[in-house]
């Protein structure tokens, strides 16, 4: 397969024709400097998938995201990306510095900067596209409000709009429902489901909230020291695999049409 190099996330990365796969981790060790966080990661992001990367806190889920985006390099092995792939990254809204006096529209418009180029200004067409992204996520009416005055859920939606403004091939989200109440959490996840199903957006999401992802993701990658298992949600999310990963009894129940993960108690079989 032909390999070409390009810039991604400030690093020189390899892009190959991967067929219907968008990203491929091949026997990759991931970490920072001398600190190895994950070893022998073999993970694939397929076009059109909704992949959730789950696992206990601190096992390296965000490290996988950052390596995927090219922000950090793998310590060993390879991470291959489809040619010309564009990522739309949605960080945790808590990492955004609220000192900046920016409106919701101005924050969302940043997602358009890489498309416009270094010296050019955003055109009316660009601004209209950004406004359409704000409308898509339900915060158009807040376009002229200061970003720092928004609620957590509104900020997260704005960051999703920013990612969409870049017309991404893959939407990458890091714990998008952290610190949210159940109404905001539900709204964000339904938005992602809608983007995935009606707009055909490929989604990669990191979350430690199993009850959130188990009812939305099609594919689950379970991480703990390394990539423990990856497959369809129904195959991977079992009492046995979760109990092993988290080191305590985990039970799955169906309730009101949703799967619910319960920690503690008796396991199946």
């Amino acid at each position, binding site marked *: 397969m032909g390999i070409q190099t390009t*810039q*991604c*996330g*400030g690093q020189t990365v390899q892009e190959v024709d991967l067929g219907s796969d968008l990203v491929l981790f091949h026997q990759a060790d991931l970490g*920072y*400097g001398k*600190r190895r966080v994950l070893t022998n990661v073999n993970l694939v992001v397929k076009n059109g998938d909704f992949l959730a990367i789950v696992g206990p806190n601190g096992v390296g889920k965000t490290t996988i995201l*950052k390596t995927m*985006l*090219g*922000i*950090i390099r793998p310590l060993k092995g390879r991470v291959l990306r489809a040619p010309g792939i564009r*990522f739309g*990254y949605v*960080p945790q809204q808590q*990492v*955004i*510095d609220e*000192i*900046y*006096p*920016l*409106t919701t529209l101005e*924050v969302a418009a*940043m*997602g358009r*900067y*890489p498309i*416009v180029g*270094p*010296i050019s200004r955003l055109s009316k067409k660009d601004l209209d596209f950004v406004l359409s992204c704000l409308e898509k996520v339900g915060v158009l009416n807040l376009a002229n409000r*200061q970003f720092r005055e928004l609620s957590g859920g509104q900020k997260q939606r704005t960051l999703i709009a*920013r990612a969409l403004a*870049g017309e991404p091939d893959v939407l*990458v989200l890091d714990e998008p429902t952290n610190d949210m109440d159940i109404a905001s959490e539900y709204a964000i996840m339904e938005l992602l489901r809608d983007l995935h199903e009606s707009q055909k957006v490929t989604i990669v999401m990191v979350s430690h909230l199993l009850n959130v992802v188990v009812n939305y993701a099609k594919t689950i990658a379970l991480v703990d020291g390394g990539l423990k298992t990856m497959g369809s949600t129904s195959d991977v999310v079992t009492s046995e695999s979760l109990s092993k990963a988290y080191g305590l009894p985990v039970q799955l129940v169906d309730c009101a049409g949703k799967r619910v993960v319960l920690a503690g108690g008796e396991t199946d079989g």
Partner: protein
Amino acid sequence: MADVFTVPFLRIALLGGLIVGCLCAFLGIHVVLRRIVFVGAALAQVSSSGVGLALCTNTNVSVVSLVLTLLGVATFSVKSAEGRITQESLIGVAYSAASALAVLFVAKSAHAEAHLLNVLSGNILTITPGQVWLMTTLLVCTLLIHTLFYKQFLFSAFDSETAKACGIRAGFWDLLFYVILGVAVSFSIRVVGTLLAFGFLVVPAVIALLLSQRFAGIYTIATSSAWVSTILGLVLSYRLDLPTGPTIVAVLGVLLVVAWIVSKLTR
């Protein structure tokens, strides 16, 4: 008040003060927003120690001061992903060390003391037309670069990881900002002194951020604050026979208090 500026050296001082004020106020907005005010202070001290070193070794003051400042810039702009020493600690160490070195250099050179005191407390009244041209060039270049690459600077400062994920070389734009800041601080100190340069860097930006929530308004208010304080400061220092740099900074302080009161009343 206008009759004060019929005096030639005061006219030059006014022009120099307006230009340096505009340059430092503009950069100061980004210094405050990036939360690197301490970096500005440390760079000012590093620049001062460069002046002391140059006087001690009888070398070119501008060159040595600039080289040391750029070395400081290179050190401060590196953000390590993990480390036992925070960037803030590193800046604190640099600030202390540079301040100590400045004093030590002065101790080794008799004629350096008077010169270094000039650098610290301000010598805006001795600014030359050549320095005015130099600072004007620096101001135009700074504004041009920031206007052309506004998007890159803003995205890299606001959310560097997402900027990198989008293909923007955030590390490069951060370094470029620090280099521009270092050069501006180094030359501003030579022209108006450490106290006034640092005052221009921080206070107008804080005044502006208290009074406005839009960048256009912030730039306008910061620049206006620097200009008003320069004009009033020069007039007051001339009339009351006070040191000019500290007088301008004192006027900035008064403007800051007024801005704070206005911000409380209008919220």
